[in-house]
């Protein structure tokens, strides 16, 4: 089997598929065979769907042969986080409590990808109910393809691991607070978390209806842009979803980028992270300077970002999973801290919750002013590289990176791209944050960065 083929980008594969030089069935079989070989080693999948994948691949092949080429995703295999409904297949949301749950419909994004001709190879493993430390998952801690003793990140754990290990071309993930950025950074893949409401969430497990976002994890920023274009847009079933234009353009990239004004967040790597991550970030800033862009340091407005994010999520998840507390099944959650969170969410006052929503509104005014001055904000996706599988949450997230809470409260888009490795040969992530509905700018900046670097072309040597 040609392993190189499995690490090709979407445009590279699409070119071969469209020209009928590569069969969707053969490509799907290749991915299924590596999934069989590595999936259990990594705990990357909750469910593998070989029958469905092969039947979709056969349809794709027949359509392409007959000249009915649907999109650049036609015949491309992908994985969806186990949080998305897939008709007739288990969707346990990473939890033993929901083991055996089967929906009789597909999530809206799964439908949209099917219409584009993409092929689903399985449901990627995830942290229990989209949150918690490495051990908090019904499928076993998801291991990092760069070092099997380390975690792939969460909560889109399997999505990050599967893309990094070459088990699929791209994967769907979700983020409420860090769930795409963290695994993208730890696994060395490109991860796009779009603006809140850009991608409809129908058929996806809700954790916090005011903060949940669906995103994409892939080999490059351009791959993310291609998938993004296929799944954006309003859906009547998700009242928060919205239509907005998206015109990603690779042409004359550097000419446009040189006109942009960027800022960056200086993190305390010594106290909250790793010095090597800080050095990689400095090096990435220098790459942007070579494009001729202006970069200034940003002082974040003063807010209790993490408190606001925590309060909103804890209250909304307690409301969503009220049945677990009411019926006493909260005890069956794997992580004791999460059990306390579910119970505690019921006792936070409505006044405190509403105060957070009012603060969110005030934050929006302040960040609007920042984005009047700057086109994007640069930062580190995570302040550390992948922690050991047995790490506790307090060790994984020591603090710092408060802008991540701000981004998620506000629902502004961001992309994480690989920007180096530490001495342990673990990937480091660079984050580019944009204003609402301006995925175009961050994707173009990330593409320019990837055109100038090779970090995204490095793959783990799994045996």
């Amino acid at each position, binding site marked *: 089997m040609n392993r190189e083929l499995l690490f090709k980008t979407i445009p590279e594969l699409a070119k071969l598929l469209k020209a009928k030089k590569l069969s969707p069935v053969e490509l799907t079989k290749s991915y299924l065979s590596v999934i069989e070989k590595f999936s259990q080693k990594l705990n990357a999948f909750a469910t593998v769907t070989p029958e469905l994948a092969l039947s979709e691949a056969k349809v794709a092949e027949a359509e392409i042969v007959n000249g009915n080429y649907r999109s650049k995703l036609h015949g491309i295999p992908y994985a969806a986080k186990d949080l998305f409904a897939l008709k007739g297949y288990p969707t346990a949301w990473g939890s033993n409590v929901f083991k055996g749950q089967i929906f009789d419909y597909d999530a809206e994004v799964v439908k949209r990808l099917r219409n584009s001709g993409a092929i689903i190879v399985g449901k990627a493993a995830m942290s229990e109910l989209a949150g918690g430390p490495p051990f908090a998952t019904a499928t076993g801690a998801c291991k990092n393809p760069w070092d099997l003793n380390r975690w792939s990140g969460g909560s889109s754990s399997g999505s990050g691991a599967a893309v990094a290990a070459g088990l699929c071309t791209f994967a769907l993930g979700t983020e409420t607070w860090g769930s795409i950025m963290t695994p993208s950074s730890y696994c060395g893949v490109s991860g796009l978390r779009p603006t809140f409401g850009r991608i409809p969430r129908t058929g996806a497990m809700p954790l916090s209806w005011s903060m949940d976002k669906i995103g994409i994890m892939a080999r490059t920023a351009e791959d993310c842009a291609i998938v993004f274009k296929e799944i954006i847009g309003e859906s009547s079933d998700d009242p928060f979803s919205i239509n907005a234009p998206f015109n990603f353009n690779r042409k004359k990239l550097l000419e446009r980028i040189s006109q942009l004004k960027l800022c960056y967040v200086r993190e305390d790597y010594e106290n909250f992270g790793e010095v090597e991550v800080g050095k990689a970030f400095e090096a990435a800033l220098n790459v942007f300077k070579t494009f001729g862009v202006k970069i200034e340091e940003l002082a974040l407005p003063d807010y*209790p970002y993490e408190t606001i994010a925590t309060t909103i999520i804890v209250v909304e998840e307690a409301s969503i999973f009220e049945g677990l507390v009411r019926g006493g099944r*909260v005890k069956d959650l794997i992580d004791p801290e999460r059990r306390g969170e579910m119970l505690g969410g019921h006792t936070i006052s409505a006044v*405190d919750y509403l105060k957070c929503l009012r603060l969110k509104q005030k934050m929006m005014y302040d960040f609007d002013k920042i984005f009047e001055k700057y086109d994007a904000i640069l930062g580190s996706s995570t302040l550390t590289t992948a922690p050991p599988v047995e790490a506790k949450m307090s060790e994984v997230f020591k603090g710092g990176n408060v802008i991540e809470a701000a981004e998620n409260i506000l629902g502004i888009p961001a992309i994480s791209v690989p920007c180096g490795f530490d001495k342990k040969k673990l990937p480091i992530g660079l984050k580019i944050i944009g204003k609402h509905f301006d995925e175009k700018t961050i994707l173009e900046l990330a593409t320019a960065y990837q055109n100038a670097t090779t970090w995204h072309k490095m793959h783990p040597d799994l045996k």
Partner: protein
Amino acid sequence: MNRRNFSKLIGATAFLPAFIQPPFNLLKLDAKQTNGEIKFLPDELYGRKLSAEEKIWLENFYKNYEKSKAELQNIELPIELLPAFIPKYPMKSSRTKKQTDED
């Protein structure tokens, strides 16, 4: 007792706590009240009595959340900053008025 003596007595009484300490028990407030920590820990939720284990999980949650709660309660928001989802009044067209007209 004339008015002058009465005033002196009242004045002296006001200084009394400075010289004579009240019994210790009277001052021994719950530590949780004096440092602004959350005191409320329910015994039941949704009419279901919490198990001993559940109380421990809940208590641990509060240990982590207390700082956040205090942080929130220290913020005073301007009254005009209403939540985004509450419409500004008066509304341009009053639905209630229309319905009344139709009636």
